[in-house]
């Protein structure tokens, strides 16, 4: 996994609550094995029924067609577990998503892809949103995971919390499967123990065990 240490660039304001993964990365008819994720991002909301782009929609505005940081509202990423709802943001350069709260699976999918999910208090989020809307893409924002600090124009500084485990994993870009594989012996021992204690749990077929 790609490490995350810090990012500096455009902060995109998409201030809505309960943004769901069906909006972020629609599936619908025409599912393809390989997808242009930048095109998928908010596919329906970006374009009118005739296929023409809606110029006012945030991600269609010239300053926000790509970016580094996304700022949104409560319960960001609710709905399905589709990881494409994370890959679509990576496709436009976003590696940090800041919200008032995240849906559980979405937050996990961010971590799995080297995207830093930051949760802010209402007071912090109010300040950041105001600054990001005011900047309108003209001034960069910086998120530094080492110092756990977010900074922006006019001396804006906000400290944020990330659990030490998630922080280390992101900073070092650790391979999650590799980390778990270090415990192979424990997994094997567990399987053996379960095969004796709850034998039916280790067999899945129509046999009578």
């Amino acid at each position: 996994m790609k490490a995350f240490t810090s990012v500096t660039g455009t902060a995109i304001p998409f201030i809505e609550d309960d943004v769901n993964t069906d909006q972020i990365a629609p599936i619908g008819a025409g599912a393809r094995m390989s997808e242009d994720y930048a095109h998928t991002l908010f596919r329906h909301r970006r374009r009118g029924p005739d296929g023409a782009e809606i110029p006012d929609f945030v991600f269609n505005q010239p300053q926000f067609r790509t970016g580094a940081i996304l700022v949104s509202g409560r319960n960001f990423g609710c709905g399905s577990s589709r990881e494409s709802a994370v890959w679509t943001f990576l496709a436009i350069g976003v590696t940090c998503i800041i919200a008032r709260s995240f849906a559980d699976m979405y937050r996990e999918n961010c971590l799995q892809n080297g995207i830093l999910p930051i949760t802010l208090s209402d007071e912090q989020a109010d300040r950041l949103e105001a600054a990001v809307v005011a900047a309108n893409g003209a001034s960069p924002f910086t998120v530094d995971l080492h110092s756990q600090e977010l900074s922006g124009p006019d001396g804006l500084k906000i400290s944020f919390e990330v659990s030490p485990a998630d922080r280390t994993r992101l900073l070092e870009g650790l391979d999650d499967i590799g980390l778990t594989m270090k415990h192979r012996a424990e997994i094997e021992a567990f399987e053996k123990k379960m095969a004796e204690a709850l034998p039916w749990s280790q067999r899945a077929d129509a046999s009578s065990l």
Partner: protein
Amino acid sequence: MGRSLFDKIWDAHVVCKRMDGRELLFIDRHITHELHAPHAFKKLKEAGRVVRRPDITFSALDHTPASTPGRDDTTNPEGKPFMDAVRAASRENKVRVFDLGDAEHGISHVVGPEIGMVLPGATHAVPDSHACTVGGLGALAFGCGTTELEHVLATQVMALVRPKRMRVHLEGKIGALASAKDVALKVLSQIGVSGGRGHIIEFAGPVARALSIEGRLTLCNLTIEMGSRSGLVAPDDKTFEWLHGRPWAPKGAMWDRALAYWRTLPSDEDAVFEREVIVDCDGLQPQITWGTDPAQVIEVNGRAPDPSALPVEQRGAVERALDYMGLKPGEKIAGLPVHRVFIGSCTNARLPDLQEAAQIVRGQHVADGVFALVSAGSASVKREAEAIGLDKIFRDAGFIWGESACSMCAGANGDGGKAGERILSTTNRNFENRQGRGVRTHLVGPALAAAAAIAGKIVDVPQMKAGD
């Protein structure tokens, strides 16, 4: 201190703490599906890894097959590459595929319980958020993304942070016309789409106990819409009776041994929950979503909200939902014309759901201009329904008696509606554009969906009674 059902399942499956503090939770039963698995299998191969436990890993083909009667895997040409990719990768890894035409074909969340693969006290993973469905049997399930799927394939564990516990007490006795779906929608209307975030929900109380197993599966199916990754109902005699004799359930002496263990699973009297909520379901009437998130719920006799009566900060979202749904503030929901009706999905396509709908449909005919589709949750449900003549009731009434697939719920197989159409759907998500661009989805239970197909409009409770 007493332990909850969740604690007991979790504790029994923790392999160890990983160096970063996450707990490695062993997964007893893993079902992949063709929409997300091909990518994970590919990454697995690229990393030189193999499936650790092919004997407890399975692949379902549910998202992309056409629902068209008599379909094969070429009927939806866009689905074929997904199905072929998962077939090839599964074969390579010695993973069994529940293929089209197999006795075990169907939606993974329907098949797992019905064949007795998913059992009380078991852990279960599917790269699909509705994995939580099987909580109705007292199994702890986790929906996951593609990278987590790859992790489970390679290691048979998930690396998780222990969630908190929440208990929802479902009090009272629901009305005669209401079913499990209405209970779930009622809970959603009370706790909202993020009410369960960070928690595993245990549904308790007289309503949970009174629900059939299929009803409990429907109820738990919607826990992800409440923001919770998993929901549970404690297993009881009803659960054991339902499971006994299912093809993959333990047999003979092993059944007795499993049963003795399962009886220890329900939450202790003094179990601690970080959050407890009471939902009064007494006399509950059929519920329906009016808006574009599954917590925007009213009684079917009710009216859409009027934004001007709401606090200022709530108005924007409500106005946007009303606009998308083509509703006027305060408009009565009954009487709105319906263009399509879908009875299906992992939420509401088990046999009792189809029976509930068939009871309304029997001897009636779908209204002119209404497209009505039934897609059984699995090949087995379809067979059982046909054995008792439900297919004839639906077909005689003008419904399409489709093959089993996720179909119009996710729309990944091409099933869906056209812009501006109003769909009454027994599914789980009424998000904008989910069932097709500009489509207006109302989530309901099977009876209300069936009644709307016959009437050509949303019908209220007295009309449902009259049609009975």
